């Protein structure tokens, strides 16, 4: 029995600033058919933290249940994002509104640089991160899989870095595992792979590389059966994490027999 087996080591946790988590699967709340389906996925994923966006109240919409009435901040850590912001200034104001709304210093900082790819604006992300860190935020920046950008954000004091595996909502999987490995080897803070995961094997690969956690949304919301995929992702994250801790065997180009070569009968 390995002491690193998560089943035998249920206390294995990770920290983001002063926040501690057991689940390594963070999920979004966008693109679901209903709040109830979203909640069922969060439960199936075993997630403790859920991202939300901030948008204008529609005063003409019929008054019904809101997202937070179903996905309760008393039950889950809500992580407000700054999605849709294209400048540092917009992201900073949005982060402050999120803090006011949800009473949390945690923020998923997103400053988008390009509409088509939704790749981050690295310079603006660094600029916004500096201001938010000075203001006491626990900053989790969404960023390109650029080791230098990740190192800079970590050195500034971000509680984690969140490199993308592929464009948001693309489901392309881990497109640059080599960069992720370099980030994992050179950054001291938790590395949360955010965006691009399409199916369970992608999640397992990211965790086997040594990612601290994964953040995903569309892979669940746009699966044919979102709740079943949420469960698959939970298992994949656990399997990937456990395999990472177990340590994989070395790769060999040639075969190495599993059965003894001694004692073979003369037939």
């Amino acid at each position, binding site marked *: 029995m390995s002491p690193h087996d998560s089943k035998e080591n249920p206390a294995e946790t990770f920290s983001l600033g002063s926040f501690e988590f057991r689940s390594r699967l963070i999920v*979004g*709340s*966008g*693109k*679901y058919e209903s*709040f109830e389906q*979203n909640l069922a996925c969060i439960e199936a994923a075993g997630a403790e933290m859920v*991202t*939300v*966006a*901030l*948008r*204008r*109240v529609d*005063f003409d919409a019929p*008054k019904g249940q*809101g*997202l*937070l009435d179903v996905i309760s901040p008393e039950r889950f850590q*809500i992580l*407000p*994002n700054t*999605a849709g912001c294209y400048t540092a200034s917009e992201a900073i*104001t949005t982060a*402050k*509104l*999120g803090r*006011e*709304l*949800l009473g949390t210093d945690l923020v998923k900082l997103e400053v988008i640089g390009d509409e088509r790819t939704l790749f981050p604006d690295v310079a603006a992300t660094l600029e916004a991160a500096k201001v938010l860190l000075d203001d006491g935020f626990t900053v989790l920046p969404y960023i390109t899989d650029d080791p230098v950008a990740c190192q800079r954000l970590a050195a500034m004091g971000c509680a984690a870095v969140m490199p993308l595996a592929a464009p*948001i*909502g693309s489901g392309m999987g881990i497109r640059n595992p080599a960069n992720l490995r370099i980030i994992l080897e050179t950054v001291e803070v938790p590395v949360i792979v955010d*965006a691009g995961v399409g199916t369970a094997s992608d999640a397992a690969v990211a965790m086997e590389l040594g990612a601290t956690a994964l*953040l*995903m*949304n*569309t892979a669940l919301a746009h699966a044919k059966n979102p709740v079943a995929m949420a469960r698959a992702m939970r298992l994949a994250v656990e399997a990937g994490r456990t395999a990472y801790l177990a340590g994989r065997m070395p790769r060999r180009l040639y075969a190495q027999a599993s059965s003894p070569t001694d004692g073979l009968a003369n037939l």
Partner: protein
Amino acid sequence: MKPSLSNSDSPVEITVNGEPRAIPAECTVQNLLDLLGMEGRRVAVARNRDIVPRSEYAAEEIRGGDHVEILEAVGGG
């Protein structure tokens, strides 16, 4: 008749979430939220891009020409 500037009953024009809106003069953020039926809703408010803390809703006055943003949490990744 008093000049409109000193008449506290004459409405003033502001912008709320990008739409023009007439509100009573001497309207606080709390008054505006009540007018809009936001009672009990979890919202965050910015006035002219400055965040208005919840503790200041009752004291913060809105003036003519102000741009007010009232936001809520929605699904996002």
